[in-house]
């Protein structure tokens, strides 16, 4: 288990996540893509912390902050989805085209 291998796995997760975030039509699936990208970030951060930074405590804190970002993103994201659905009964990104009019 080398850092390079680890980062490759993280890169794969980020790549798949990016694909998901760009391609999915529905909000919730789009958020899954974002989460998967953050998953890759988590893995890379722990890898750096463990194998390249000699266990500097700030590395662990970075992981926790990333998780906090995920939690915030999810909570606000879902709240927005609920609010949008309540008013427009839409759950697709494209249903919000009307905002442009």
């Amino acid at each position, binding site marked *: 288990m080398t850092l390079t291998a680890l980062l490759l796995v993280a890169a794969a997760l980020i790549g798949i996540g990016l694909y998901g975030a760009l391609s999915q039509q529905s909000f919730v699936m789009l958020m899954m893509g974002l989460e998967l990208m953050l998953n890759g970030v988590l893995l890379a951060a722990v890898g750096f912390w463990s194998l390249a930074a000699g266990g500097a405590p700030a590395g662990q804190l970075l992981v926790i902050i990333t998780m906090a970002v995920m939690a915030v993103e999810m909570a606000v994201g879902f709240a927005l989805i*609920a609010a949008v*659905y*309540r008013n427009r*009964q839409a759950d697709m990104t494209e249903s919000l085209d009307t905002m442009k009019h």
Partner: protein
Amino acid sequence: MAMSLLGRFAARAPVPVFPAVGRDGEVRLDVLSLAPALRVVDSPRHASILLVSGDIRTADRDSLARVHDQLAHPRATLWWGTQPRADTGAALTVAAAESPETALRDLYRRLLTGGHTSETHWLADEPPNPWRGRGDHGQGGEGMMGGVPYGRMMPMPPTPDLRDGLALDVYTAQFGPFLPQLPPGLVLEITLQGDVIQSAAVVRPPFLPGRDASAPFDRVLHEATPVAAIERARAAHHLRCVARLLGILQLAPQAARCRRTALKIERGGSIDLAPLRKTLRRAGAFAAIPAGLGPIDAAWAAELGGPAARAADQARDRRETAPAYRNLDFRTLCQSGGDVRARFTQWLDEAEQALALARAAGDAAIEKGAPVETPWGHRAPPSVYRLTDMLPGLEWGEALLTIASFDAAAVCRMAPLGIENP
């Protein structure tokens, strides 16, 4: 070898019975459920034997077949005090007056050790709608929401929710007549959004309390009947209603204790209900019923009569003026509130009072044909107030509590046919 050993072991387990309760089948099932060798279960999937107790309405035959077919193999049916289905061949029957306990044990043993073959299905072995091979993947559906994937349709179009306006899918289905937590016979068509009821309609009403010439309340029509017998029957009836409600509060052993007490009371035992009441209070049974759930107003209460009315502060009781009760210092008990908790308390209060009256009555009797206060209020005519008006907006468990807080006669009067059905 190993299998037969397992089978012999299995045959010694308590018999898992799913009851399909028909007309007049409920009380005797309550008594039977106390037998230690049996276990009355809530879902046919958990049962090996379907016990049909009481006559099944013609309209319920399909439902019975459906429940029968839902039992897991090995399975068998026992008909208790009713005519078996015509097409079932050599059906096992037990007369209404006998206890089927031994028959059930014996049937279960033979079922597991190979002496009785597992019953086959009664309904046709085909999916509800033809679906195979249709749609993009042969799943029977088309597009996103079309077709009949795997034989059932996709959800109904959403309607705005009663509570928070979020328009999500609704689920409409008929519940009953054999759902253990509904009164026997009651079939409701319920529309759910999540676990909250959006609308409900009665498809078939529950069974009215039967007229049984040997039961005290009907005996009084033909002959003079001791007050003690009448009051004991009242206490037993109320305790069985309490037991039904306790089951929904997840208090099964306390419910069994209520049923056991009811049986002892009917057999003439002199019982103090205070310890039972204390147990229930400590279990939080009163507190667990939400305050103000299922309220009825004065007019509604007056129309229903009986304990439900007295729970809504309507002090009407025939016993106040009945000559037989004159020396017994009878006083009408009432609750304020008229909600589920009040009805629950009223049943317990009246059961206690009835036992005190039975003790005090000595050999006083009610003469033949005299009007007597039944334990369940008026039996007829249909009320203008609807059970189904109470249910929308309630969570599933709360709705069941509300229904269980009325006795079968009250539910019957609030559930007439043909009005809600468009």
